[in-house]
């Protein structure tokens, strides 16, 4: 194809976007929303994975003591736990200590009257010497009659993973709906563009322009929507990601700060993110325009 023809086709594609700017904006808006959601879901999944890895490396186990234990049973449990070879450290927090620390956080008024009926349990916080023992030790502890519950890092990791699964499923549903909406809006926009240019298209056919040539400006338009949407989605996700990152890093709570430390830095993911946004956007824009050309541009 000659460069003059290419220039003509490109100019026509861009002009068509401008003439039809409201629908064009809708096309780009929905497609970029779709990309943003996909991007966010993927980033969340990646970060949960990284966090799961991080949490899995922690060797702290929380042992919640059953409320109904007698002092004698508690003493026995104390002996058993302190006698376990695998443990590196054992720290006991009594109900009373727990209440005091909670009062320090939430204030006297909110927790007034809790002294008579303390809702907090006695707890042990233990660490294992060897990280490979976490699972076995958790199990042994959980089987003791005096123990109500054992919270190991694995469990926390499981919670994270199940949240991630839920987000993935819901995200996938929303994304499918949005992808369909994107395709419908884009193909409608292109249909209107075809309608607006029906005279030119008609004349092109009579003077012997090839089908591919007649279609190209419309395909270019679809691709343009894709690229624009990809760029918008990329910059929005970038801003959102940095914002959340900064928020978590500033947070006083130590475990959140720890979690933030395991967040994947944007520098390592921006390129694959941009490339996949661009690819997905271009493909969607092209499919959208081809869908409508197949139906409305009989040559």
């Amino acid at each position, binding site marked *: 194809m000659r460069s003059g023809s290419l220039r003509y086709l490109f100019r026509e594609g861009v002009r068509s976007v401008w003439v039809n700017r409201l629908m064009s904006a809708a096309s780009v808006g929905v497609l970029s929303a779709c990309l943003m959601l996909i991007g966010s879901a993927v980033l969340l999944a990646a970060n949960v994975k990284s966090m799961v890895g991080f949490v899995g490396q922690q060797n702290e186990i929380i042992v919640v003591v059953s409320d109904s234990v007698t002092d004698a049973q508690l003493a026995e449990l104390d002996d058993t736990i302190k006698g376990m070879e695998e443990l590196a450290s054992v720290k006991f927090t009594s109900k009373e200590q727990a209440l005091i620390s909670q009062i320090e956080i939430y204030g006297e008024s909110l927790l007034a009257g809790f002294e008579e009926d303390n809702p907090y349990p006695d707890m042990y916080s233990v660490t294992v010497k060897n990280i490979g023992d976490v699972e076995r030790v958790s199990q042994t502890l959980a089987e003791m009659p005096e123990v109500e519950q054992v919270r190991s890092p694995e469990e926390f990791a499981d919670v994270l993973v199940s949240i991630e699964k839920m987000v993935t499923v819901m995200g996938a549903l929303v994304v499918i709906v949005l992808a369909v909406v994107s395709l419908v809006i884009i193909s409608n926009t292109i249909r209107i563009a075809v309608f607006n240019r029906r005279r030119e298209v008609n004349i092109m056919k009579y*003077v*012997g322009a090839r089908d591919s040539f007649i279609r190209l400006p419309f395909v270019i338009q679809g691709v343009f929507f894709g690229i624009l949407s990809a760029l918008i989605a990329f910059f929005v996700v970038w801003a959102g990601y940095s914002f959340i990152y900064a928020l978590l890093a500033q947070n006083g709570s130590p475990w959140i700060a720890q979690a933030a430390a395991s967040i994947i830095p944007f520098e390592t993911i921006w390129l694959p993110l941009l490339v996949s946004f661009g690819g997905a956007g271009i493909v969607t824009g092209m499919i959208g325009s081809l869908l409508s050309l197949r139906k409305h541009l009989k040559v």
Partner: protein
Amino acid sequence: MVNFEHVTMIYDNGAVALKDINLHIDKGEFAFIVGASGAGKSTLMKLLMCELTPTSGNIQVNGFDLTTLKRRKIPDLRRTLGVVFQDFRLIDSMNVYENVAFALRVTDTSSKMIRRRVPYILGLVELSDKAKCMPRELSGGEQQRVALARALVNNPAFIIADEPTGNIDPALSYEIVELLNEINRCGTTILMVTHQHELVTRFPKRVITIENGTIASDTGRRGTPFQADPAGIYRGEASLV
């Protein structure tokens, strides 16, 4: 140049537009097609440019066998044809020059060739001084001359005109037919549908009369005999100087 063998055209709704048409038009001929409204004249023209496929029969145009012509080869056929319609079909947003250049731009012609060819053709239809005008600033006759220039600019061997003077003052109609006659003298085959009897009587050319989808009469070849284009006027070579 054009050959119809037992061509029948029945539309999807059952309307029989043409019945068993046999027609032959030689290179260099100028033929009028006349007949009442609804006789099937436009259908015949649409079959020629492969806009319709006949229900039965064979058609050959400019060496293309339309019955076996593949879809993607249709542009090749149309590049050998120049088509003019009653309603001009100019692009309102483009000026005269751009309207004519459009036909070349969308058929892979170099911009050098476009710059050479368009002014030459505009000179031929005597619209050089209107090159920058928009179609709405022109009279009907001038608009049709722009359409004719667009049909000519690809240097086609065959011009098909479906009532090209239908929307034009009678006085200006002669001008258009005179122009077609001029083009014909240089070897281009012309097929023109018309309603206007005064045109047919004034230009003694072949007249094919269609009634109810059949050829009611055909005068056979008349008028100027074929002659080559010695000066190369319509081939564009002359524009090189």
